[in-house]
C-alpha cells in the first residue's frame, strides 16, 4: 500500500472541523494511521484534539502547542496545522507525566503499555513530543533512547507557546497536558529518514564561558557573574523589553563544544535574579559559547536537513515529511521563513510536509550519543 500524506493549515472559524475535512478530502478512502496537530495557544489543544479525534476514531492522534505552524504551502502564526499519514504503518503511543520531577519515570510510563515490535514491520521510529518548560529535554530524550534500544531512531520536538514561555502542552488522543511527554512508535515496512542540521556558529567576541553556578536547567552564574549580564555584554545587545526577552535569547543560543561541531542549547527565559532558564540541564563546569546565525545559513541548513532525511529513504521517493523546526529560524528569517519551508519541500520533490516552530528538536540516529537539539531543523521523511 502506497504511503499517502495529507497536510493542511487553518487560522479562523472552526479550525478543528476545517482541518479534519481537508484531511478526509485529501486521503479519500484511505484511513489515517497517524494524525498530529500543531496548534498555537490561540487554538487550545484539548478541544481541538477532541474534535479531530472524533472525526478519526481509529487513528493515533498526537498534538502539540506551537510557536508558528506551517505546511509546504506556507507558514502562519496563531494558526493550527495538521499532518496525516496513511499506508503500511502501525502506530501506538503513550503519555508520561511529571516530566520535571522525574524524566526517566515519565518516559517509562509513556512506554509502559506499548509493544516494541509489530510482526511484519521491520522498522520502528519513535516520535517524541515534550514540554520544554520542564527543563530537561536532553534528559528525556536520552531516557527514551536508553529504554527503546539502539535500533529505534528518534525524531520530534519540544512544544511552544508563541514565545510567551509560560505554558506549553503535548497531547495524546483527547488529552492535552503540560509537564508531560508523548511518545509514538511508528512501525513501518520501509525505513523512514531522519535528517538534522543547524546553521549556528559562535559569536566572534564570545570566547569560552564557564558555567560557575547552575542547578538543573537554571544557569545562575557564568564566570561568577549573573548569566543574564554576561549574555547582554557578549552579544552587545541593549536589554530588551521583558516581552522580547525570549526572542532575544533564542537568537543567541549557547554552544557546547562537541568534537567537530557545536551542540546548541536553548536559553528560554530569564528570572529576576539574573539567571537564565534553559530547555535542558546545563551542569556547573560546562563551557559554553554564545552563538548566532545568518539568514543564508538558516535557509541552507533547513535544506540540508531535508536532503539528509531523503538520503535515508533507500532510493524510495519521499511521500512527505514531518518537520520540527526551531523558532529561532523564524526569528532570524522573519517574513523569509517561507523560503526555508519551500526549500525543504523542494529537496523532497515537492512532497507535502507539515510541522511547527519548536523550543527544541529531537533527532537521535543509531549510534548517536545525544538527541536533543536546538536551532536545528529535524525532518522525518516517509517513503512512498
Amino acid at each position, binding site marked *: 500500500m502506497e504511503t499517502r500524506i495529507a497536510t493542511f493549515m487553518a487560522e479562523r472559524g472552526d479550525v478543528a472541523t476545517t482541518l479534519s475535512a481537508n484531511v478526509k478530502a485529501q486521503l479519500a478512502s484511505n484511513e489515517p494511521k497517524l494524525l498530529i496537530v500543531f496548534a498555537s495557544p490561540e487554538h487550545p489543544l484539548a478541544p481541538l484534539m477532541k474534535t479531530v479525534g472524533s472525526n478519526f476514531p481509529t487513528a493515533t492522534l498526537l498534538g502539540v502547542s506551537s510557536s508558528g505552524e506551517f505546511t509546504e504551502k506556507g507558514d502562519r502564526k496563531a494558526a493550527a496545522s495538521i499532518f496525516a499519514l496513511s499506508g503500511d504503518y502501525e502506530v501506538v503511543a503513550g503519555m508520561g507525566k511529571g516530566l520535571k520531577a522525574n*524524566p*526517566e519515570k515519565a518516559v517509562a510510563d509513556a512506554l509502559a503499555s506499548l509493544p516494541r515490535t509489530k510482526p511484519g514491520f521491520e522498522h520502528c521510529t519513535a516520535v517524541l513530543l515534550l514540554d520544554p518548560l520542564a527543563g*530537561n529535554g*536532553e*534528559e528525556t530524550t*536520552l*531516557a527514551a*533512547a*536508553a*529504554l527503546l*534500544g*539502539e535500533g529505534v531512531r528518534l525524531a520530534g520536538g519540544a512544544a511552544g507557546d508563541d514565545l510567551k514561555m509560560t505554558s506549553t502542552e503535548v497531547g495524546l488522543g483527547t488529552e492535552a497536558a503540560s509537564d508531560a511527554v508523548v511518545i509514538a512508535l511508528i512501525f513501518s515496512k520501509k525505513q523512514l529518514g531522519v535528517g*538534522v*542540521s*543547524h*546553521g*549556528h*556558529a*559562535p559569536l566572534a567576541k564570545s570566547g*569560552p564561558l*564557564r558555567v560557575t553556578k547552575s*542547578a*538543573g536547567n537554571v544557569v545562575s552564574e557564568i564566570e561568577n557573574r549573573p548569566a543574564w549580564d554576561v549574555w547582554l555584554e557578549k552579544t552587545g545587545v541593549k536589554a530588551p523589553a521583558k516581552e522580547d526577552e525570549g526572542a532575544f535569547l533564542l537568537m543567541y543560543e549557547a554552544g*557546547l*563544544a*562537541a*568534537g*567537530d*561541531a*557545536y*551542540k*546548541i542549547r536553548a536559553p528560554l527565559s530569564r528570572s529576576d535574579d539574573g539567571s537564565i532558564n534553559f530547555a*535542558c*540541564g*546545563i*551542569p556547573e*563546569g*560546562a*563551557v*559554553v559559547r554564545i*552563538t548566532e546565525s545568518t539568514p543564508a*545559513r538558516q535557509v541552507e*541548513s533547513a535544506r*540540508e536537513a531535508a536532503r539528509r532525511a531523503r538520503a535515508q529513504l533507500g532510493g524510495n521517493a519521499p511521500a512527505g515529511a514531518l518537520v520540527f523546526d526551531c523558532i529561532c529560524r523564524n526569528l532570524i528569517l522573519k517574513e523569509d521563513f517561507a523560503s526555508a519551508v519551500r526549500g525543504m519541500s523542494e529537496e523532497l520533490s515537492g512532497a507535502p510536509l507539515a510541522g511547527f516552530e519548536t523550543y527544541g528538536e529531537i*533527532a537521535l*540516529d*543509531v*549510534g*548517536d*550519543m*545525544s538527541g536533543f*537539539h536546538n536551532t*536545528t531543523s529535524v525532518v522525518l521523511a516517509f517513503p512512498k
Partner: protein
Amino acid sequence: MSEADPPHMPPSHAASTGPLRVEELIAFFTPSVGEEKARESVGGALSRLHFAHKNTLDRVEALAVLDEIASTIGIVGVAARFAKARILLRKF
C-alpha cells in the same frame, strides 16, 4: 570546528569488540554536556576508582566508571545511565 552540523559520534557498534578507550567513554558525554565537562566528569570518576592511569577499560571497569557518574544529579547522571544502557549492548 565546523558549525554546520550537530555532533554525530561514531556508532557504538562500530567499535563493539575489545576494551573501551577512555576517549570513547568521554564521547558518550560530550554531546550532552560539552567536551570540558565530559572530561571533568569521566576524569573525576577514573581518579576516584584509581583508574586514572588507564587509557582503556574492560567491561567491568567501564561500567564501574559509569555507575560512579550515574549517581550525579541532573544531566550528567542521566547521560551516564544512557551510556550504561548502550555499553551493556556491546560485545567485549
